[in-house]
């Protein structure tokens, strides 16, 4: 049996690594077709994403928001739901954080930051909660509803930022008032990466423990595996779905708070840049495993960080890294089809 367990670990590690290598090979063919040297491209990607201390910080900084938005898809996935509304939750979470900061009565930075984080999480959580509630009570497909809710959230966000909440001094870039320098989140000690990274890491660990070590997690995964069986065993499916969706939205909402409090200092259109959508990709690549999200987000962050170097040194278009992301997505998902076969192989061997 020990061999079988070892084998499983080997499969779990080798499968994504192999898929990554295959993706890089396919990508190399693409690069060659675009007239650049694929080997130089690999070297540049390594250098731009992981080759120097600066590159690592670049990579981690880009990974930070993705870790949190990936949780927005990964948590409901445990319940068998496909939620893709992280972008909406992020944007509204950021706005909620600003509103909190502007109206918070006490001028103690850490208290303001805590209140902002809570506000962002509640607002983001409520948005995804709606998708969960529509699913549970009205049978509305949660994938579609969470996507459409995102459109509504973004439209509402623009309306507020360019209308009632606009700072009159923000002439050519409509924004809300600033939350104030004192309330900004600083950088992690010793590196040029903001606290959002640590928030993301902690959130992943918490979600992992929640899903694998608690009754809630067990019930949620059971409901995700077979909702009817779970219901027959007396599990409160509705409450599980609503809680899971709220937590999911809260993660993305926290990402919005971080964007506001660590980067922009105010809410404006720069919050709507697609971190929520890239998070979906991260969650699927990580197979909705909370801890696997971290390396996947770092990988995608690294690809993003090295994308610039590919453009600058090889003259490849920006879409190059999107092509690599797409190849990765397809190959990793396809490689999952091999898992059962490889595991079977292990069983026969032991």
């Amino acid at each position, binding site marked *: 049996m020990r061999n079988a367990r070892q084998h499983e670990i080997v499969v779990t590690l080798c499968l994504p690594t192999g898929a990554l290598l295959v993706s890089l090979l396919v990508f190399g063919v693409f690069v060659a077709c675009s007239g650049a040297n694929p*080997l130089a491209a690999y070297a540049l990607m*390594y250098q*731009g994403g992981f080759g120097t201390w600066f590159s690592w910080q670049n990579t981690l900084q880009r990974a930070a928001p993705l870790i949190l938005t990936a949780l927005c898809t990964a948590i409901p996935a445990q319940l068998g739901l496909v939620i893709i509304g992280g972008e909406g939750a992020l944007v509204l979470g950021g706005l909620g954080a600003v509103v909190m900061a502007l109206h918070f009565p006490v001028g103690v930075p850490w208290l303001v930051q805590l209140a902002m984080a809570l506000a962002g999480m509640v607002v983001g959580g409520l948005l995804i909660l709606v998708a969960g509630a529509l699913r549970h009570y009205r049978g509305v497909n949660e994938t579609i509803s969470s996507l459409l809710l995102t459109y509504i959230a973004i439209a509402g966000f623009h309306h507020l930022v360019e209308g009632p909440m606009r700072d009159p001094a923000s002439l050519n870039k409509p924004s809300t008032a600033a939350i104030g320098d004192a309330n900004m989140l600083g950088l992690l000690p010793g590196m040029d990466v903001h606290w959002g990274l640590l928030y993301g890491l902690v959130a992943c660990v918490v979600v992992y423990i929640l899903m694998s070590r608690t009754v809630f997690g067990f019930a949620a995964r059971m409901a995700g595996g077979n909702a009817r069986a779970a219901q027959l065993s007396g599990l409160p499916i509705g409450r599980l779905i609503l809680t899971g969706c709220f937590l999911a939205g809260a993660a993305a909402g926290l990402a919005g708070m971080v964007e506001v409090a660590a980067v922009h200092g105010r809410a404006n259109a*720069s919050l709507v840049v697609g971190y929520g959508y890239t998070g979906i990709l991260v969650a699927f690549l990580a197979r909705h495993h909370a801890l696997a999200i971290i390396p996947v987000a770092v990988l995608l962050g690294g690809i993003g960080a090295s994308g610039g170097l590919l453009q600058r040194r090889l003259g490849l*278009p920006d879409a190059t890294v999107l092509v690599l992301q797409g190849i990765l997505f397809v190959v990793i998902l396809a490689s999952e089809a091999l898992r059962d076969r490889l595991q079977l192989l292990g069983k026969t*061997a032991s």
Partner: protein
Amino acid sequence: MPYDHTLSRRALLRGAATTAAGLYAAALPVWAANQTVVGFIYVGPRDDFGYNQAHAQGAAAVAKLPGVKVVEEEKVPETADVQKTMGSMITLDGATLLFPTSFGYFDPHVLKVATQYPQVTFLHAGGLYQEGKHPKNVGSYFGYIDEAQYLAGIVAGHTSRSGKLGFVAAKPIPQVLRNINAFTLGARAAKPQTTTQVIFTGDWALPVKEAEATNSLVDQGIDVITCHVDSPKVVMETCERRGIFCSGYHASQAALAPKGYLTGAEWNWEGVYTDFVKRFQAGEKLPNLVRGGLKEGMVRISPYGPAVGEPARQQTEAARAQLMAGTFVIFKGPLQSNTGATIIPAGEQRVQTDLSLEAMDWLVAGVIGSTK
């Protein structure tokens, strides 16, 4: 059996590591050490026929200068990403002069990175520099492109048969309103009864909405359309397909509408950037705030298209000569808004440097539309 996997993976990794190490040299910058490395950062695709292309044309002109190496990155969002892109250009490429070209890059991104790298010069398109408040290694420049829009308006006013012009705009912010107003004032200087119908799409790059807006304007009998969005491509192509005239923005879109393209308000970043970089190479301290219009060579109009008649050319050239001489003011009294309010009383005028123009929140009489 399982050990086979481990072994092959290890071998593979070892091979990969060797390859990576061998190729590391290939990844080092290929340019000579004594070259000035200039970085350009764009918020959208550099071949968008619009805002970003105008800057990329400037970068291409800079790349032709001796002793200069240009590095470019496109589609960089206005987030922490652009901070890292600037850092990457400085750390990995050795850039000493950066042009982060999107308006939204300035605060907080350029300001923050400029503090981190005081030895690097940052020149930002937007004209937002404030003396005493912003780092000294930051500069900001912008052009009075409404002067070019005024000239384009004269051409449009002359060419339109219906007297009805259209304007597809992104957001009702001062820069955009100033263009709509200047275009309309130009058109009404040609033919006083001309009107401009404006449609706001809500954001800088919404191709589908821009096409819908253009089509609906054409359906209303409008026969000349211009725009202020990041990429005028869709608007121009739709106009050409519908058989009406169009006037460009940011860069020349003449190639997209060979029949209907009249002229357009363009940036002259080629001239501006070449000048900046030459002075930078000569060791000169560049001014922190640079603004200018036609006279200073920061903006220009596209060459006239085939549909532009002689009267239009004559009046436009006359106005251009006055603007070049600095004897003409676009916003002067009596000037009324389209809600009937008097904006500038008779006998008064607001020259380009007037700060109240930067906070414009009104549309001149003749514009059909609302700033809200």
